[in-house]
């Protein structure tokens, strides 16, 4: 199979990317989704609060997803459901498997990664105690309650104050479950202020900040948890421990961008975000592979995920068009490639434009054997990139770097294209960032070479709430200059 743009994942990021890619003129756009339906996590997020920024109204998750599923269909994007991507390669092939089509290879003009994120499980936490039934991640419980119609227990404690956990505190309460407490190890809540108010305070659910669960009790089924305040080193203070009986424990302790495919392909990841390092066009360190949404960094609002997806989709369409133009010059070899691909057992691959005379292997091109080089310039080393020696759109461009400064945990994008205007805002470059610590009366400061480019006042900042700051591209340093984003007191 041969497509212009393949989108890995049919959640809000992937749907937006597919819409934007089609709107930007990409011929064949294919969404590959492993679930039976598109929408990602949105169908199980039945609460309101989605779309205030993008649609100007407050929608539920299923409504938000429904609008984009329709837009993608109207725009002419294709999709393969119940299809699991096994591998993506640096020469822009996607290997996937589905019950209907078996093993499939897709040759792409560009790829958009939109795999989203997954929840941090109990195994990632060092909670002493037994391993009884009744412990769920908050998102799993949300799926059980909202999609499958199963309430996981009668008396619950929630560890972590991320948004999904807060939303589930309210949801379980309305379904007749007694939510005894939300326990948060940090001194501040992880979720949005509105969720603290409307999910906890509205129902008088206690929130224990600076506390953690110090032991899990119960043999077959959870019988209760020990809760204790923590000291400065976040170690539970044993003398102050108390017991809360419960049969259900929900974990809302963080989300991790899902990047197994990206890592195996040798895409450079940012340890601060857990996602690919991207340019302002959402291009990763592998030319022709773009990324958007929670696979890049965990967002708190789906509206921002959609914005990312739109940028990635448009840029991917441009990359695919440039690849197709290159392929036109080598069209003579296309027939041969088709014959070779068709002859290969197992993979139902069809060779096509741009395939050159490569053989279709299922193991990629030695991805990961060589670390991706991405230090300020995105020059494509010979033999990398799209595999036929030509450079893709980013190959000839110079990239500047954006770095987190004081009290900034991470910035996205981490690179910007010199002279680029496509990063979603024409002459404006928008940088998303998350603070390391809560602070009040601060200024978000963008600077380069000792010069302040932009100052934006903020009443308060919290790690749970993503910030955005915009700068005029004309003020950015030239060459491979470095821009720093800091949060400083006023």
């Amino acid at each position, binding site marked *: 199979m041969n497509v212009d743009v393949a989108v890995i994942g049919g959640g809000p990021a992937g749907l937006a990317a597919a819409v934007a890619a089609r709107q930007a003129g990409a011929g064949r756009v294919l969404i590959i989704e492993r679930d039976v339906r598109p929408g990602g996590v949105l169908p199980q997020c039945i*609460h309101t609060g989605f779309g205030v920024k993008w649609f100007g109204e407050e929608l*539920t998750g*299923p409504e938000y997803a429904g609008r984009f599923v329709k837009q993608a269909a109207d725009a002419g994007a294709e999709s393969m459901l119940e299809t699991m991507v096994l591998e993506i390669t640096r020469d822009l092939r996607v290997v996937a498997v589905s019950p209907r089509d078996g093993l499939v290879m897709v040759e792409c003009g560009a790829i958009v990664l939109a795999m989203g994120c997954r929840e941090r499980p109990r195994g990632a936490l060092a909670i002493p105690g037994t391993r009884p039934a009744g412990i769920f991640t908050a998102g799993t419980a949300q799926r059980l309650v*909202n999609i499958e*119609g199963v309430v996981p227990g009668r008396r619950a404690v929630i560890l972590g104050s991320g948004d999904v956990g807060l939303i589930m505190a309210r949801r379980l309460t309305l*379904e007749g479950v007694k939510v005894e407490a939300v326990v948060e190890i940090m001194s501040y809540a992880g979720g949005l202020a509105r969720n603290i108010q409307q999910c906890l*305070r509205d129902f008088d659910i206690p929130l224990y900040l600076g506390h953690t669960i110090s032991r899990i009790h119960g043999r077959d089924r959870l019988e209760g948890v020990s809760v204790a305040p923590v000291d400065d080193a976040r170690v539970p203070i044993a003398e102050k421990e108390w017991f809360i009986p419960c049969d259900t424990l929900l974990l809302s302790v963080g989300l991790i961008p899902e990047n197994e495919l990206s890592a195996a392909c040798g895409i450079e990841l940012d340890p601060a975000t857990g996602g690919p390092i991207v340019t302002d066009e959402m291009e990763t360190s592998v030319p022709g592979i773009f990324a958007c949404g929670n696979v890049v960094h965990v967002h708190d609002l789906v509206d921002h995920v959609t914005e990312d997806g739109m940028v990635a989709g448009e840029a991917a369409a441009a990359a695919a068009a440039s690849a197709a133009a290159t392929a036109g010059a080598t069209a003579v070899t296309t027939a041969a490639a088709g014959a070779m691909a068709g002859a290969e057992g197992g993979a139902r691959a069809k060779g096509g434009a741009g395939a050159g005379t490569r053989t279709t292997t299922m193991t990629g091109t030695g991805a990961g054997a060589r670390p991706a080089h991405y230090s300020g310039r995105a020059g494509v080393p010979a033999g990398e990139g799209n595999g036929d020696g030509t450079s893709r759109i980013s190959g000839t461009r110079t990239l500047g770097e954006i770095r987190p400064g004081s009290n900034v945990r991470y910035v996205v994008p981490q690179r910007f294209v010199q002279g680029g205007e496509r990063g979603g805002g024409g002459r404006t470059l928008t940088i998303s960032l998350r603070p390391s610590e809560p602070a009040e009366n601060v200024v978000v400061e963008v600077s380069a070479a000792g010069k302040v480019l932009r100052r934006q006042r903020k009443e308060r900042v919290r790690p749970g709430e993503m910030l955005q700051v915009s700068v005029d591209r004309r003020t950015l340093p030239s060459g491979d200059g470095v821009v720093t984003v800091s949060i400083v007191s006023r």
Partner: protein
Amino acid sequence: MTKGAGEFTVTCVACPVGCEVTVSGGDEVRGNRCDRGREYALLEHRDPRRILTSTVRTTCPDLPLLPVRTDRPIPKRLLFEAAKLLATECISPPVKAGDVVVRDILGTGASAVATDDLF
């Protein structure tokens, strides 16, 4: 959250700033940074309302639940009763997002409408 004699404090959710706004003596407001905060706190004090989102059972084995929302905010004190009412409903396809599933919940005038399609 109430505190102090005759005082009422709420986190404003009109925007992401999240001011702690206090209403005392019925209409004296402090802690807000804008007019929206004042209005929000007064409404929260006088007549707090919420959109209720929940699910109703369906006759489809593949999709046992259909998500619904009230088409307007209902009084906060009725949330539990309204949730219980929706838990007794069971509907059959076809339903399209936006279709009314339950009319005039508990005399509020609000309807529960589907937020997803059911085929």
